[in-house]
């Protein structure tokens, strides 16, 4: 392995544009984020991209690397490079603002659309709600709550690509964790939100979300849980009321 230069093709433009090739010196401990940063600082200052923590905590640096959505700060070039080439593009399924930066609004709007937010009915004057950490519901919720909204799963999902209104794995996973939150008071609204035509039943368990999640979360599991909950609610009614 005596290549000293990487041939990196990077998407430039927005919805329309082109791939432009840059030559980047190769280092032993290089991440893809290092590569993008080098291009912007040394070769072409007009390149737009996002990053923040650069240590795999924030999810801002997610991009499509050789066709696969990844966190670029956690992707070592040596592990994925093909020969001496690399292809870097913005995340799929999201509108491109410029170059490698995408418009995340629809991703977060769908989170809201799935009622992926908490609402309780206690105030600071009430006693704490006691939630048993080892209870079935809490363990199910805990399995999915580490999501940081990086959109890698959303960008990997073929159903999102083919159904623009599909809520997507992240939103549905968050909704699932909240259906298992005994303190939340919006469960019926939430069930209705994820039952819609573009809700959980549009998922065909391709598993790309689970395969690609950098935090090893499993939206497929959460969505399967929602499918059962919603189906039972549709047929027999749920513990929170009729659908």
């Amino acid at each position, binding site marked *: 392995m005596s290549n000293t230069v990487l041939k990196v093709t990077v998407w430039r433009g927005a919805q329309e544009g082109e791939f432009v090739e840059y030559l980047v010196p190769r280092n032993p401990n290089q991440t893809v984020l290092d590569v993008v940063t080098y291009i912007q600082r040394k070769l072409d200052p007009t390149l737009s991209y996002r990053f923040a923590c650069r240590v795999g905590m924030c999810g801002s640096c997610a991009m499509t690397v050789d066709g696969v959505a990844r966190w670029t700060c956690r992707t070592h070039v040596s592990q994925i490079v093909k020969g001496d080439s690399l292809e870097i593009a913005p995340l799929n399924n999201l509108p491109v603002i410029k170059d490698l930066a995408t418009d995340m609004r629809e991703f977060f709007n769908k989170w809201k659309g799935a009622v992926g937010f908490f609402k309780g009915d206690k105030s600071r004057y009430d006693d704490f709600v006691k939630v048993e950490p080892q209870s079935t519901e809490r363990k199910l919720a805990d399995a999915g709550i580490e999501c940081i909204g990086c959109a890698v799963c959303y960008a990997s999902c073929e159903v999102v690509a083919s159904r623009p209104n599909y809520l997507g794995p992240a939103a549905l996973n968050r909704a699932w964790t909240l259906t298992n939150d005994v303190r939340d008071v919006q469960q019926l609204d939430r069930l209705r939100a994820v*039952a819609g035509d573009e809700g959980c039943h549009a998922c065909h368990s391709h598993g790309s979300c689970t395969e690609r999640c950098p935090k090893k979360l499993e939206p497929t599991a959460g969505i399967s849980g929602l499918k059962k909950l919603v189906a039972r609610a549709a047929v027999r009614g749920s513990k929170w009321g009729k659908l």
Partner: protein
Amino acid sequence: MGQVMSQGVLQAKLWYAQRISAMVLGLCVSIHLIIIFYAIRGGLSAEEILGRTQGNIAFALFYEIFVLACFVHAPIGLANILQENFSKGFISQGLSWLLAALILILGSTAVIGVYSGGNI
């Protein structure tokens, strides 16, 4: 809102029906595969088939359940494929209903056929 919700309820019921029929089919297909392998030894003739099925009420019931499960399972699957790759419109729904009708009618006819052996 009411219409959106009824769509959601419909999707949920279709999903449920397809999975329940899938469970029934899991059993039926497993048994059917065993029957196939048993029956094809040394070739398969009409005499042999009818020899086993004619007058056999157990076979008739088994295969009619099989037909009914297919009648639920396959059209829903086809509808999903058509709606995802073409439009949600009239043709997708129409083809699914057509498949449902073909399975129910031809399938039940087949069950009656092999049960009666032509003697109705």
